[in-house]
């Protein structure tokens, strides 16, 4: 067997697996999306139907809020952790990255323990102010959950980017009389921009598609993945569920592709 043939043979298992369990099913999904009574118009329903449009708007707003909050938090902590060394540094980094492997359901449970009916915050507020704060199952709870799974992955990217930052630029700016805010605004933020785009895109796409957390918190907040799930399982509205999930997939894919064209080599697990 020649080398060329051998390399060709190496692709065979891949071709079989990916065709059978990814390409064909995705094609089927796209076709099914247009097979309902509305035909191809089902795809337009995401933006035309007021109910779905509201859900889409909710999902995008929540994902955007999560992304911005995560970027702010991760930049403050990432700069600090990469620049300063102190006792307990490694432990702090380990604590901030440990939840990276938690599935969405577990993240949901963490929020229940924090802000649920038997949660820590409810306990604290009851003792301090006499009222029990329970917000795990509301929009704030969902936001907290999305923050929980975004922070670890964004912080790692930011720390790696800060490592490559040249401190002499900041020193020069300071020597020229720039205050701390100007240094942040004119030196640090522009230098970290590629990392913001790459990790922000991952955070946004993951939050858009997150299902496990919303499922565990069983919120009454309508987000796109929950809508798809209920349309499919409860309403048996299969064509619409397919169209909505193709739409959602297109959005998350486009966000990641756009971010990557800005030079980030990121790889995301949207869920």
């Amino acid at each position, binding site marked *: 067997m020649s080398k060329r*043939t*051998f*390399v060709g043979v*190496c*692709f065979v*298992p*891949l071709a079989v*697996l*990916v065709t059978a*369990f*990814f390409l064909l*099913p995705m094609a089927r999904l796209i076709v099914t999306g247009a097979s309902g009574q509305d035909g191809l118009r089902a795809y337009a329903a995401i933006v035309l139907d007021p109910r779905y449009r509201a859900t889409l708007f909710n999902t995008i707003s929540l994902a955007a809020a999560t992304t911005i909050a995560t970027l702010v*938090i991760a930049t*403050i*902590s990432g700069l*600090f*952790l990469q620049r300063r060394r102190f006792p307990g540094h490694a432990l*702090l980094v380990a*604590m*901030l*990255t*440990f*939840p*990276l*492997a*938690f*599935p*969405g*359901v*577990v993240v949901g*449970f*963490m*929020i229940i*323990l*924090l802000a649920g009916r*038997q949660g820590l915050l409810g306990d604290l507020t009851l003792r301090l102010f006499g009222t029990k704060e329970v917000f795990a199952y509301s929009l704030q709870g969902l936001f907290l959950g999305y923050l929980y799974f975004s*922070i670890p*992955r964004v912080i790692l*990217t930011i720390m*790696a980017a800060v490592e490559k930052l040249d401190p002499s630029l900041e020193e020069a700016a300071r020597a020229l009389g720039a205050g701390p805010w100007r240094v942040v605004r004119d030196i640090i933020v522009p230098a970290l921009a590629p990392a913001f785009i790459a990790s922000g895109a991952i955070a946004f*796409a*993951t939050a858009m*598609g*997150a*299902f*496990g957390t919303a*499922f565990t918190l*069983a919120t009454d907040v309508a987000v796109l993945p929950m809508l798809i*799930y209920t349309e499919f399982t409860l309403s048996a509205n299969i064509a619409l569920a397919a169209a909505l*999930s193709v739409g*959602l*997939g297109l959005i*998350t*894919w486009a966000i*990641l592709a756009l971010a990557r064209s800005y030079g980030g080599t990121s*790889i*995301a*697990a*949207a*869920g």
Partner: protein
Amino acid sequence: MRDRLTFAAQLVFTALVAAFLIVPAVLSMLAGVTLNYFRGIQSGLTLQWVVQVWQLYPDTIVRSFVIALATLGVTLVVGIPAAYALHLRNDRLSRTIEEIITLPLAIPGLALALALLLTYGGFSDFRRSWLFILAGHAIFTLPFMVRSVMAVFGAIDLKSLDEGAASLGALPWRRFRDVIVPNAAPGILAGSLMVVTLSLGEFNLTWMLHTPLTKTLPVGLADSYASMRLEVASAYTLVFFVMIIPLLVAMQIFAGYRGGPSALSR
């Protein structure tokens, strides 16, 4: 003085963020071994909840391991040759193939699960077996294996190794087995740890693909969060942590966890 103030403020902020992430995890571990969580740790420590989890959900724990190992097997058999071929060809076609196999990471698990259900839902024997879940896990974890192995190929001089072995008369298959695979070992290890960790924790796909007889651990977790008392749900989560922490530690030691693909949890 001002510098020390800034330092203190940043430290407090970062510690608060870490507390937000770690405190609930610690609470859940404690709740899993506390007699009565409502009354607190004073009510005493117990393993009864962990025992109860083992009585209620043993099949989910075993099945999760079986699926994770089977997923690893599939991604090894499919992923290593694919990474080798992709690296050698390195042309437009191979970059397109790479794009396609990375796609499952860019689209929500729900969409992929729906697609698999629509295509194979009618094949009831397949749909009812754990192999259906395996198919989803394999597609979702494959890119991690391929990328991890390709990263190693990119760092070593694969071509001269391959040509050296060829000049000694070794045939392509032998060169692949005796030269390429051993040299890719660090990438294979890193990819394997990632694949097993991801498969053990996978929920979004699995929730859609499972049947009452093919529940995995994360599916069982969701069940227990909805219907069990907090102590049992916590003990079950504790079991999951115990399974996953050694993998995370191993990743940090062997595989440069921080350098790896930055997105893990779903």
